[in-house]
């Protein structure tokens, strides 16, 4: 028989920040909503303050990683791409092995690492990260996907620690009502924050960067 042990020892602690080492921030959301652009913006904005790295989960393994190299001023040894075997959702939620390997590799390579972004492959509204992989997660929508999306809900929209609605500059062109998106998000998110941004108008993603700073601050009391 297998050795007896107390399952309680393995029950996950509630809330965020249960992982040691760098803060791990999941970036999820549908295809084209701006996950990689947001990751690049956050790397540029926070790169001087924090020792950071990125894990990408692309359909093909180098597309997003190449974008980050060009746009985030991140050297190759701070970007790890993992293969998801046609199942981007599985790789961030149901079997996180490859992503854990990538995070641990980055930690080993950069012992002072303070922040790791794990960017999911583009998926649908049911996609969310396992808290076995990340500490906090950001779900990225865009205005052009329609102002009904927050109302439709799904785990990404309702449960993410931060909801980001990107491309607000497109709202007049696609007939999206930002007030509706703001109101519907608040209704389904039980008090968790939502930020409406436009990376085109404000390429530093300052509001999102502030939120990430706060996650690091509350995790490591001064």
């Amino acid at each position, binding site marked *: 028989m297998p*050795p007896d042990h107390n399952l309680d020892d393995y029950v996950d602690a509630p809330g965020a920040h249960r992982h040691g080492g760098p803060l791990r921030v999941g970036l999820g959301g549908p295809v084209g909503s701006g996950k990689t652009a947001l990751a690049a913006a956050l790397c540029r904005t926070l790169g001087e303050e924090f020792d950071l790295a990125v894990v990408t989960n692309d359909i*093909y*393994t180098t597309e997003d990683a190449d974008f980050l190299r060009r746009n985030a001023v991140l050297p190759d040894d701070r970007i790890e791409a993992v293969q998801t*075997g046609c199942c981007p959702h599985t790789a961030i939620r*149901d*079997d996180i*092995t*490859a992503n854990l*390997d990538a995070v641990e590799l980055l930690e080993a390579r950069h012992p002072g690492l303070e922040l790791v972004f794990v960017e999911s492959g583009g998926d649908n509204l049911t996609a969310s990260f396992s808290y076995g992989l990340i500490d906090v997660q950001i779900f990225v929508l865009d205005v052009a996907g329609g102002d009904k999306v927050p109302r439709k809900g799904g785990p990404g929209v309702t449960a993410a620690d931060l909801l980001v609605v990107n491309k607000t500059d497109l709202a007049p062109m696609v007939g999206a009502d930002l007030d509706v998106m703001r109101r519907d998000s608040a209704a389904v998110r039980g008090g968790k924050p939502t930020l409406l941004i436009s990376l085109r108008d404000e390429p530093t993603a300052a509001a999102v960067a502030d939120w990430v700073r706060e996650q690091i601050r509350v995790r490591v009391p001064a």
Partner: protein
Amino acid sequence: MTAALLTLADSRLPAGGHAHSGGVEQAIAMGVLTDAGSLTTFLRRRLATSGAVAAGLAAAACGGGDLAALDAEADARTPSPALRAASRQQGRGLVRVGRRAWPSAAWDELPALPHHAIALGVAAAAGGLGPRDAAQAAAYLSVSGPATAAQRLLAMDPLTVAAITARLAPEVDDVATRAVADGLPAATDPLLDLLAEVHATRKDRIFAS
């Protein structure tokens, strides 16, 4: 058999196997694998070669063999560097979940990045299973993961793929039985080695191997 064997062979065990196609992605790219018939042939070849070797290694590791020596035996039976890396990557994933699922001192005797079959043998022992069970899991996993990969990549009918895997059961059993009775096999398939080496150089792969 105990239920631990079902857990060990379950494709949902989060050990990283879902991202490995066992050569299927490259076999499809090269036109070797195109349909149900060629998938069956591919899986048979895989079972008879790398499946049989994995079954023998897993059984020996489960049965109290010298783990470092068996790991070296696995290296010697895996000429392709890409396949050695894929095996060690999956071994690491299995150790991660196995330690949590079945705590045992045996995990500490493994090398840092063990071959998957060696980790599988240790997991089986830690879960209260015997060498025949370990061989069974190794033989089954040598075909179940690649079958699923083919289903995804070719958009095959999942019922057909399930039937193919199910009908290989007698052969899977036979491989497991012989793995215990005959000692470590040394079967190899140059096609699988070639597929893995070409696959590893591709920039556009969806699977890790």
